[in-house]
């Protein structure tokens, strides 16, 4: 079929006539323009630009023309095919864009659907509160000291100036272990860590110790046989009550907000002398119109913990020379701090293991 055909009279090669080529081009361009989608355009491409399209077939006839006519016919067909290919490419771009746009519309989802498929974990608020407090002190240059919860009686009491017949021993209802003559207790306070610290480090000592403590309190809304304290101890040259006040004021402002400070009231702890109760300015009412304040119950102050200047007797028992060094110590309830910081009236949810409680606090507070 292909190949030169010398039998033809050029005039009679109809497909190569100018108007025929023009018609073919018009037909092709019309089909291209009319192609509604990429699928239709593919067919149009086959029909009008494929190997068997009229122009392709006409092209093959060029050889049948006399040489002088071939150039003109070739140009004519070539231009027509070029125009068609261009039109197809243009249409292709338009249709592809349209298609993409339509696909994106069709793929629309309801983004309001719930997305939670995996359980959310969280840490216990008391852990978080302890870490937050530890961080406040680490930022000041303190270190975190630790000690066991099942503790030697001597470290929990005697070394802290709480001799066997000290009335204050009855202030702290102690869990004793068997056999009784082993002199082992569940620590009633984090203070034995003070003694341990002084026995294992040389001054200057700047430590805090958050941890669990135990007392034989019946479990109710405000008492628990296990609770958490943070103990602070500083032993250095020239340490005074003023340093204690400064430290606790700073602690209070970091934990409860700018301009929150503390108040000292005389108190009694065998391991400190002088001793003080620490009240923190109510961070809700700030002492203004306190009468209706729920957080401080109208006091303007919240009882926060105890503190004092380390009793020289404790320094002696722990091998620190009271003629050279002095120190201060303080102890606050972590649970208690958490409770008023987060408006919790009943402490029991802290120890009930209900995931709804811990989950409310996530992984940082």
């Amino acid at each position: 079929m292909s190949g030169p055909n010398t039998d033809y009279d050029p005039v009679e090669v109809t497909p190569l006539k100018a108007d025929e080529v023009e018609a073919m081009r018009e037909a092709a361009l019309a089909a291209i323009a009319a192609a509604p989608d990429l699928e239709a355009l593919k067919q149009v491409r086959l029909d009008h630009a494929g190997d068997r399209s009229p122009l392709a077939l006409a092209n093959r006839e060029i050889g049948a023309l006399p040489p002088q006519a071939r150039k003109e016919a070739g140009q004519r067909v070539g231009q027509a095919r070029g125009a068609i290919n261009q039109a197809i490419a243009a249409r292709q771009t338009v249709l592809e864009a349209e298609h993409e746009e339509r696909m994106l519309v069709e793929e629309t989802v309801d983004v309001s659907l719930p997305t939670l498929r995996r359980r959310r974990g969280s840490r216990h608020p008391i852990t978080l509160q302890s870490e937050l407090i530890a961080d406040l002190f680490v930022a000041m240059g303190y270190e975190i000291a630790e000690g066991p919860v099942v503790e030697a009686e001597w470290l929990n009491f005697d070394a802290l100036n709480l001799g066997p017949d000290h009335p204050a021993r009855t202030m702290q209802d102690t869990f004793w272990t068997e056999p009784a003559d082993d002199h082992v207790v569940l620590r009633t306070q984090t203070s034995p860590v003070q003694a341990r610290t002084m026995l294992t480090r040389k001054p200057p000592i700047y430590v805090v110790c958050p941890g669990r403590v135990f007392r034989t309190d019946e479990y109710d809304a405000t008492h628990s046989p296990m609770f958490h304290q943070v103990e602070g101890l500083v032993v250095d040259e020239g340490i005074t009550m003023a340093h204690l006040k400064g430290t606790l004021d700073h602690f209070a402002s970091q934990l409860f907000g700018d301009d929150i400070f503390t108040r000292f009231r005389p108190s009694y702890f065998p391991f400190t002398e002088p001793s003080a109760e620490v009240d923190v300015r109510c961070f809700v009412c700030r002492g203004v119109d306190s009468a209706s304040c729920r957080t401080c119950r109208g006091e303007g102050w919240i009882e926060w913990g105890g503190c004092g200047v380390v009793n020289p007797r404790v320094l002696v028992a722990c091998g620190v020379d009271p003629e050279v060094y002095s120190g201060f110590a303080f102890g606050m309830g972590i649970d208690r701090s958490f409770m008023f910081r987060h408006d919790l009236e009943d402490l029991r949810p802290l120890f009930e293991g209900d995931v709804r409680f811990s989950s409310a606090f996530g992984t940082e507070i």
Partner: protein
Amino acid sequence: MKAPKSWILEHVDVPEGTTTDELTARLTLTGLKLEAIASPGKDITGPLVVGRVLTMDPEPQKNGKTINWCTVDVGDANGTGEPQGIVCGAHNFKPGDLVVTVLPGGVLPGGFEISARKTYGHVSAGMICSARELGLGEDHDGIIVLSEDAGTPGEDVRPLLGLDEEVIEFEINPDRAYALSLRGIAREVLVSVDGASNFRDPALRNTPAANDQGHPVVVEDAEGCPVFVARKVTGFDPAAPTPDVISQRIIAAGMRPISLAVDITNYVMLETGRPIHGYDADKLRGAIVVRRARAGERLTTLDGTDRALDPADLVVTDDSGIIGLGGVMGGETTEISDSTTSVLVEAAHWDAVSMFRTGKRHKISSEAGKRNERGVDPTICEAAADRVVELLVEHGGATAEPGVTVVGTPPQMPVVQVAGDLAERVSGMPITKERSVECLRAIGCEVVPAEDGSGTLSVTPPPWRPDLTDAQDFSEEVIRLVGYDKVPSVLPTPPSGRGLTRPQQLRRRIGRTLAGEGYVEVVSFPFVGTTDLDALGLPEDDPRRRMLRLSNPLSSEAGYMTTTLLPGVLRSAAKNVGHGNTDVAIFETATVTLPRDGGPAAILPVDRRPTDAEFAALDAALPAQPLHLALVALGDEVSGGWWGEGRPVSWADAIEAVRSVAEALGLEVTATSADLAPWHPGRCAELSVGDHVVGHAGEVHPKVCEAFGLPKRTVAAEVDLDLLIELAVHLRPAPTFSSYPVAKEDVALVVDASVPAADVEAALREGAGELLESIRLFDLYTGEQVGEGRKSLAYALRFRAPDRTLKEGEAAAARDAAVALAAERTGAVQRT
């Protein structure tokens, strides 16, 4: 200590117009913390007046009761001056008595509004009140009958009953025992409140000199009882009523009026701080002897308890035997009764430590014991006894016997050397030596400044301050009077800190990792009982059954310190299930207590540092307390929803949680099959890091699930975190990557079902050699195609060389070598 304000002000003057709030605020700042201010009459409003019963007609009722139809003279209080008609159900009064009458319009405690109302056929216009109706105690046996001279009809009864009194409750610290008395509180007012003056010491009395006509007393243990004073009255009227002011004050102080003689001893104790004991003198037989008890001796105390005495107990005896537990509680045989006409008054000073021990030994907590064990002024025994005698004479019609027995002398107070600048050095605020001296003298110290220019003060504390023994104790006294509120706020400058220790950091990392894995942290009490371990299915010889026992647990079912965190987390999980939560994942980190035979923890001396050996021995005496992690999961790990089915948790999740923790520490955990309670025997993994077993994980035994009320297929793990943290990789080397292409080979191996997949993988790894980059089990198949008792493991192997592109066939050769070794080691047959 509860003290009526009027009683305090009987002993000290404060500037005119000083409010109760001002008074208590000041006392709080100097050390007597205000606990509460109560007013017994604060819930009573409206007319509450003295009434005189004019007529009283008993009227029996159908219900069996008899009521009294009374007319009561209430003066002009009812606006008419006419007698008031009132129905009264009580019978303990008679015409002519003065009673407490509330008139219509009055409101009694509990919001009880009084109005004229028709009852029992009369219009009762008011009510005759009992003590309980006025909130004055529990007495509801009858109405209050006022003493004949109490007041006149129509007069407001509130002041007469002390209803308008403000009762101030102070929290008294153990070192301020002197403030357990009006004497002590008034003295604090004097030194604390600006402008307070004119302290009237109730213990400052002219007392008759001791003589030998008094009741004979022998003190055999002068250390236990340094001072014993005895006085006697006769002709006491046992029926004499206690004056209202005394009974009201006793009630206000939180005690109970009993009888005039007893009330007076209590009254004087509250007033002076010195506990007093009264004996029925007619029941005493011969001389009083104070000594320590002897083994086997017994005493029935006033509370009716028969007690076996300890040789360390101080006792008071006479010829009949033991008549009292000295300073703690009297005995029944010589108790003052409603027929007592002679009273022997004992005011003795007792050794505080003995008092503390006896009180603790016999579990007696009394007002007297509370004071005696904290320390009472030893110099006021004579004054206190004299004050009791005075009141017995005044209110009981008694006659004071001339005999005055005084045995012993008060111990001397020590002289303490205090540096003149100590208060300044301790407080960090300027306090001159002169100011210190002034403060110390104000609280009753004798102060003698040294004449050698050293600035040292020789300070003798007053006898009511046995707590002041060390120099630093005196600095507290000075600083509290200067004012704790004056202490400046100064930040010290610590040396450069080292931040958290590595274990501290890692513990936080572990918590965050588990939270990231979807586990919620819980905190449990460490107390368990053997039933908890039974519930875990622990065999009798399981080492976890060896627990530290508590002597005084809160509950006998939880009398031990736990050796495993599993009971706590399983209980918590069950609680969540009980609350309707179907998908639970929780964890806890805490120490467990593992007893070891370390021997007793010595009570070391406190006047020196323990030696390193002594300190080490203390630690060795304590149980091991490693930090553990336990976790429990149940329900769905991925919940079902619009995206498809949920995925239930499985034994693998428990292992994976531990693996994620280990990975956070740079560690790789190997799981091998194990059989350990409380896990399912076929689904329990022993978890190891290298040669160290770090814990166990897997599915909880169905019986254990049942015992804890948990759904079947609950999974759990417990790990020794201290061990994991110790093993943690500190510095991890940076990885290098090959950028040459990867060659992938898959193999499917069929092995006996009993062959651990880990063994097959290990053999493949080893056989594949260095070119193996990774291996992943992507399919596990059991079924007909591989035959009974067999399983097919399909692995994807990736090969890559660090320095070149692998040659054709190199990966396949490595794969074949891997398969060959797996075949040799595990009998694996390549599946085709």
